[in-house]
């Protein structure tokens, strides 16, 4: 009997052993595969609906955008992608002319005549942007160009007829695009880097209809092979244009990138891997297990594993057993976490009676002083988050490293004094509704917030949780003014702090991104002045002034930028990035075939 069991086990092991055969290319060369783990799954793969980082990871690899960011340069620098060069901008900043590369083709697909991918023309870009303004698209990127491009909003109100021209969005010829703006828009090129601005062929949209989102037809470095709820597989687009990689142009820094082996990329044409496998692994334990079992090459380290792998946190170093096997990088998020007061709520926000308005401000400021960012960082962000005053995060050049930090310093005495001086006591403090989408971490953060407020005498029962099943439900609730305190986070859409400053611009009030319903005329005026300005010391001064206005009004508890820890197998040559675009870097990922597969 025992012998039979032994034979059975042997057979099973033999069968399992047969599963590990390495695939090869047609030429017999081993297939280079990069396996990336993400903590979420994308929804639609239609660029017009690529609202999440997860969707962008796939979209920017399947489709082409006119511009991209340089692979290694930080701060981010723009680089022509499908565009032949950087745009020509008229002296008044209103007319932008972009020439596109010739001879770039969409992938072969039944949507095209004869099944052969045709050349991309300037009119494809025009069509791709118009789609955002067509009600049938259910697009999510229109806000980027709304009221910015001459005639585009009118085109929509007049029926979104693709046959009608938009005066501000024209293809002058097959390879020249001209955009006419209603006012200067220095961030325009940043918007053309995003997945939203990816170029799609009209034939495919007409051929696949609503199913286009699951049949991507692009001209990017990869094409989609398969996709389900747990993974997406992409393979190299054999027709992708050959453009040799230029280390110097991509922002290579011999000191910063000394051990990364990027030199091996010089002169070769991306993409450097044959196959991308993106695993969607929501559970952090499963993600970590997949990584240590070598089922994926890269993960964003779950916070629960920090104690296991981090020898020290400032600066971050790994224990030797991990440092020997893996590369790592810490990356501050391009955004931050904050909490807004609903300024439209008269109990705590703006009030028509100036005296009550003053008392409400004092109450908000007392609550801000009662908040303990150090504890928040220690409890939820493993003490490696970056706390900063206001809304200009440390990742942008406008951040003032030497600025006043009293806004984020806990001062219970001052908080109590403010309450007392303004006549607030346990009996007359308003009952506040603190909203958040359902999760254990969000509930814990709420309880911690409530305990901070209790320390200055805010009765526990007067800060009530409002829990929502999904983020969408939560968003609807605060957009409708049902929440007094809003737990929020913001990921910047592009590396220009204008994208953050607009968060408190009055006309962007809910349901817009100004969920605080903050409406300070001085702030609004400064925003309008600065929004048309290029990056400059003068603009920085204005932004810092706006930041101070916001803090003077105590409209928000802000903020902290989380630090992400990326870790990957040493045989993978790359600089990972999940800021703004998510996934652009994957065309430059290489695999060192000489390194051991199992480190």
């Amino acid at each position, binding site marked *: 009997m025992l012998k039979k069991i032994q034979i059975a086990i042997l057979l099973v092991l033999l069968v399992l052993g047969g599963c590990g055969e390495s695939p090869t290319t047609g030429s017999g060369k081993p297939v280079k595969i990069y396996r990336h783990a993400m903590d979420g799954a994308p929804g*639609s793969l239609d660029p017009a609906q690529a609202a999440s980082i997860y969707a962008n990871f796939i979209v920017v690899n399947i489709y082409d955008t006119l511009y991209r960011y340089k692979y290694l340069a930080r701060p981010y620098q723009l680089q022509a992608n499908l565009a032949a060069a950087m745009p020509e901008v008229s002296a008044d900043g209103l007319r932008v002319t972009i020439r596109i590369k010739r001879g770039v083709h969409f992938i072969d697909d039944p949507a095209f005549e004869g099944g052969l991918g045709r050349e991309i023309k300037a009119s494809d870009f025009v069509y791709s942007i118009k789609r955002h303004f067509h009600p049938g698209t259910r697009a999510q990127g229109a806000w980027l160009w709304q009221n910015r491009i001459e005639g585009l909003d009118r085109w929509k109100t007049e029926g979104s007829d693709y046959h009608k021209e938009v005066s501000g969005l024209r293809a002058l010829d097959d390879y020249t695009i001209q955009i006419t703006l209603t006012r200067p828009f220095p961030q325009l090129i940043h918007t053309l880097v995003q997945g939203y601005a990816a170029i799609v062929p009209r034939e495919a949209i007409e051929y696949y209809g*609503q199913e286009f989102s699951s049949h991507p037809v692009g001209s990017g470095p990869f094409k989609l092979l398969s996709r389900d*709820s747990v*993974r997406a597989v992409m393979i190299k687009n054999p027709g992708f244009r050959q453009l040799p990689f230029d280390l110097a142009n991509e922002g290579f820094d011999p000191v910063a990138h000394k051990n990364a082996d990027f030199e091996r990329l010089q002169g070769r044409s991306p993409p450097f891997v044959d196959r991308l496998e993106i695993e*969607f692994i*929501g559970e952090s334990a499963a993600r970590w297990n997949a990584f240590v079992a070598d089922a994926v090459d890269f993960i964003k380290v779950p916070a629960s594993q920090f104690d296991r792998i981090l020898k020290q946190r400032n600066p971050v170093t790994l224990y030797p057993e991990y440092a020997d096997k893996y590369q790592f990088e810490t990356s501050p998020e391009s955004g931050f976490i904050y909490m807004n007061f609903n300024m439209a709520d008269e109990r705590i926000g703006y009030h028509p009676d100036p005296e009550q308005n003053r008392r409400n401000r004092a109450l908000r400021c007392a609550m801000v002083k009662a908040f303990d960012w150090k504890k928040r960082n220690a409890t939820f962000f493993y003490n490696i988050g970056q706390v900063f005053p206001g809304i200009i995060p440390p990742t942008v050049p406008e951040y003032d490293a030497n600025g006043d930090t009293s806004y984020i310093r806990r001062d219970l005495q001052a908080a109590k004094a403010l309450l007392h001086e303004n006549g607030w006591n346990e009996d007359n403090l308003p009952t506040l509704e603190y909203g958040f989408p359902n999760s254990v971490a969000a509930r814990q953060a709420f309880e911690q917030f409530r305990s901070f407020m209790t320390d200055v005498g805010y009765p526990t029962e007067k800060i009530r949780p409002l829990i929502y099943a*999904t983020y*969408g*439900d939560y968003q609807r609730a605060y957009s409708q003014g049902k929440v007094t305190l809003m737990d929020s986070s913001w990921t910047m859409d592009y590396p220009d702090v204008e994208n953050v400053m607009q968060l408190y611009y009055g006309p962007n009030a809910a349901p817009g991104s100004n969920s605080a319903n903050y409406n300070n005329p001085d702030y609004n005026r400064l925003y309008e002045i600065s929004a048309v300005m290029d990056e400059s010391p003068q603009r920085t001064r204005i932004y810092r002034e706006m930041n101070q206005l916001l803090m003077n009004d105590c409209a928000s508890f802000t903020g902290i930028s989380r630090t992400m820890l990326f870790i990957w197998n040493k045989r993978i040559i790359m600089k990972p990035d999940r800021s703004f675009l998510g996934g652009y870097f994957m065309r430059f990922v290489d695999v060192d075939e000489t390194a051991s597969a199992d480190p």
Partner: protein
Amino acid sequence: MNASYITRRLIYGIPLILGVTFISFLLMVYFGPDKTYELLGKNPTAEQIDEVRHSLGYDQPFLLRYGGYLKELLTLDLGLSDSSGRPVSAILSQSLPISLALVLPGFVLGNLFGLILGLMAAWYRGKWLDKLVMSASVVGMSVSFVVIIIGLQILLCTPYGLDLFPVRGWQVHDPGSYLAYVTVPTMALVMVTLGYNTRFYRAIMADEIDREYVRTLHAYGAAPSEILFKHVLKNSLIPVLTRIMFSIPFVLISGSLLLESYFGIPGIGLVTFEAITSGDQPILKAVVGLTGVLFVLALMINDMLYNVVDPRISKS
């Protein structure tokens, strides 16, 4: 059992399906997540909010929407997922067989082992074997499914343990690869269900063993195996069948969620969970309808099997 009997059972199933679909649709519409805000861009205008609501069909009267839902079920034209834009029928036809292949071995083994252990525990009631099996069952029932999954994953699929099986995925193309991917999930499923099954089956068997005919069999000197398998097991098949048949829809639709999620298997449990959390109504409607149909089928097959195992049960 003839065609008219089957037709009658099917007709009886119609009100059940209508009831299930109506109540679940009502809950989805009035208490389920609202997808509108997740599909909106930043800084939306009131007009854009209306556009999205319209495209989702939220602005239609309830009865019209319900009618549309029934039509979709009847025609099997289940529409497109609100999240991914993929056809719901394609998603289901891709994920349902995977879930079936994933849970079937664990379901069969969990019930088979449960039956055997339940029989043994009942036969040796009050003895050390009974106490051991019952104690182990309680332990099995007390340990969280997630802990079992993570524990087995670490033990069998990572370098921290034996590293014998794939840690995630479902690259099944032959029996060998199927075995590789299904083994650990099956072990997890058996471990988590065995305690419940064993206790349930033991209770039934113990009840059956107390009957007079068993004492008579003992008096005749029948062998224990004959008493247990030929008589006790056969006579207690009605509750056993009921439990198994009614478990099938649950096991298929929801039972595999955690396994799929932790082992990266693209089955219907994960699809359903994501649809619930994101408010993807086309998928939810299809799954709810499918579950209703599965229940009706389970009921029907259950009734037929009753007739087979106990002819005394009248068809009428």
